[in-house]
């Protein structure tokens, strides 16, 4: 081994013979590539590429602001508090879409978070070792399915299900809450919330698993040593330590739900409407852009839609930033997850 090291280090007569057939590029790099300039220029190129990430964020922000200036100038802040959406007369107000987004996201979280926590608890604490890999693989497969395929399934399976099975069931047992008034067409807030819940579940569950695995085993053992049952060990030793991280995971799921477009557009009914009934058609910030962008005839219409896009961008950036900070704070010194 020493001889090979010596051969690599001593130039001797080797380079001339070896480089006889080498390309001019390799020649240039061998001669000039060892200096500080080469290192510095390479580092500079890498730095520029890394800064491109900032450039992307700034670019999106600036171009959205520039293209929505018509609507910003005309409506100002009242754009987000008014309920009008009348392309014919040029009157625009985004409140129905804010309501739609918040309602569907909140309902989706309500449905997804308990299930996701249950799955996470099962996979980290209760699951027998051989089953762990297949089940976790299956839940991550849920995350890989594209949104449009979820939408396709929702249109042909979920909508009839809500219309014929779930809807009447809810009306029969929960009709007294007046949340299920009105005709049930199958499309509407409820269907959109269900498909959103299915879509954000894998994110929340897999992040919660990461966070729960990050809690050191010493905590679990200490609680068990004091005579706790398994659930008490999970509750006191693991969940109490990872509260912040779990809230962060839930917020990441919220961030995904806020921006989800295709599946929601296909099942929400596309009607700018604020209503108490869960069966009513509605619209979210993302789905109004997807549905009406290519039909925006006037400049003010397009500008209003781009302003909605700007609002969506800012809201999801803020939600995601806070969520990432929370998750990072908990998993900072954690061991990597073993699949």
């Amino acid at each position, binding site marked *: 081994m020493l001889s090979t090291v010596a051969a690599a*280090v001593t130039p001797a007569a080797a380079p001339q013979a070896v480089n006889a057939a080498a390309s001019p590029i390799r020649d240039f790099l061998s001669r000039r*590539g060892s200096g500080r300039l080469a290192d510095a220029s*390479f*580092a500079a*190129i*890498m*730095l520029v*590429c*890394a800064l491109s*990430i*900032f450039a*992307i*964020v700034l*670019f*999106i922000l600036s*171009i959205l602001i520039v*293209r929505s200036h018509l609507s910003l100038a005309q409506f100002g802040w009242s754009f987000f508090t008014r309920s009008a959406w009348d392309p014919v007369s040029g009157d625009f107000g985004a409140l129905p879409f804010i309501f739609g987004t918040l309602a569907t996201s909140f309902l989706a979280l309500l449905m997804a978070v308990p*299930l*996701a926590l*249950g*799955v996470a608890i*099962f*996979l980290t604490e*209760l699951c027998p070792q051989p089953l762990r890999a297949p*089940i976790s693989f299956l*839940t991550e*497969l*849920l995350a*890989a399915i*594209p*949104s*449009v*395929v979820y939408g*396709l*399934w929702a*249109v042909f*399976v979920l909508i009839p299900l809500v219309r014929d099975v779930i809807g009447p069931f809810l009306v029969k047992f929960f009709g007294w809450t007046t949340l299920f008034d009105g005709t049930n067409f199958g499309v509407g807030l409820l269907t959109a919330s269900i498909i959103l819940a*299915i879509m954000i579940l894998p994110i929340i*569950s897999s992040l919660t698993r990461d966070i729960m695995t990050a809690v050191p085993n010493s905590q679990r053992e200490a609680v068990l040593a004091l005579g706790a*049952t*398994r*659930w*008490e060990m999970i509750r006191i030793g693991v969940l109490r330590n990872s509260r912040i991280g779990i809230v962060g995971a839930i917020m990441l799921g919220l961030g*995904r739900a*806020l*921006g*989800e*477009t*295709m599946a929601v557009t296909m099942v929400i009914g596309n009607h700018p409407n604020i209503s108490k009934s869960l069966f009513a058609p509605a619209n979210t910030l*993302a789905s109004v852009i997807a549905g009406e*962008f*290519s039909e925006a005839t006037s400049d003010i219409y397009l500008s209003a*839609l781009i302003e909605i*896009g700007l609002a*969506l*961008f800012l809201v999801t*950036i803020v*939600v995601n930033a806070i969520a*990432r900070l929370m998750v990072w704070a908990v998993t900072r010194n954690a061991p990597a997850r073993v*699949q």
Partner: protein
Amino acid sequence: MDFQTRSMRLNNARRKVTNYLVSGLSILATIIVIVPLIAILFYLIYKGASSLNLAFFTHIPAPVGEEGGGMANSIVGSGIILLLASLMGVPIGIAAGVYLAEFGRGKALATAVRFTADVLNGVPSIVMGISIYSLIVIQQKHFSALAGGVALGIMMIPTITRTTEEMLATVPHAIREAALGLGVPKWRTAISVSLRTASPGIITGCMLAFARVAGETAPLLFTAFGNQFWSLKLNEPIAALPLQIYVYAISPYDEWHRLAWAGALVLIVMIMVSVTLVRIVANRGVLKGGS
């Protein structure tokens, strides 16, 4: 039995019951999650497989109401757009990852870039779509495959950056130091030693980003726009598989619904294969018998 013992026994019984209840609830939650997933997959396979035939892969869509037709132009169009996106996203993403792992360790700028990349991953894809629309489509006054490729490429960059950085971080420092000790310049170490060692992981990271953007529809709605005919030109609207599935799914024609299911099956199979490959390679690890 005195009061203390009786209340202790009751308490213990309550704790035991709660324990079993919670275990049962979490198993129930897992079943509730797994069952619809398997139902969706099986339904998809059942509906899609019955309409998959050779014509699907070789014909363009037939006129409305006519039988037959396929999605050949969408599959090819998707391939072209994804190629453009990879050409743009992979080099920039890997370069940014190399900076974060090799040159920027411990610097505040690196932490800021990492954080921004994670946040950018969560931006809705429709926002990317309308930004590229405002940038490219409005200037050129027509939809184009190029705009679609750029939109998807921008979406790939943060994902590839983060996975490249994570994979490069697993390369042991001893290897880098050995190369530097032999007189290899730092840039050459980064390329020939670190990147080469971590290349399986980096490739799987690129595949992950590829699989993610392959299913994206929203950015293509207003950039590539879709096309009913064969088109390979970069300057014209081009068909894409997820886009075509969306258009067919919301249409009123049964024939188009059938094609949508077949297209969804093809899309899912492609993505599942990538995800499974990623899993297999990731489990094998970056270094066989590494330090």
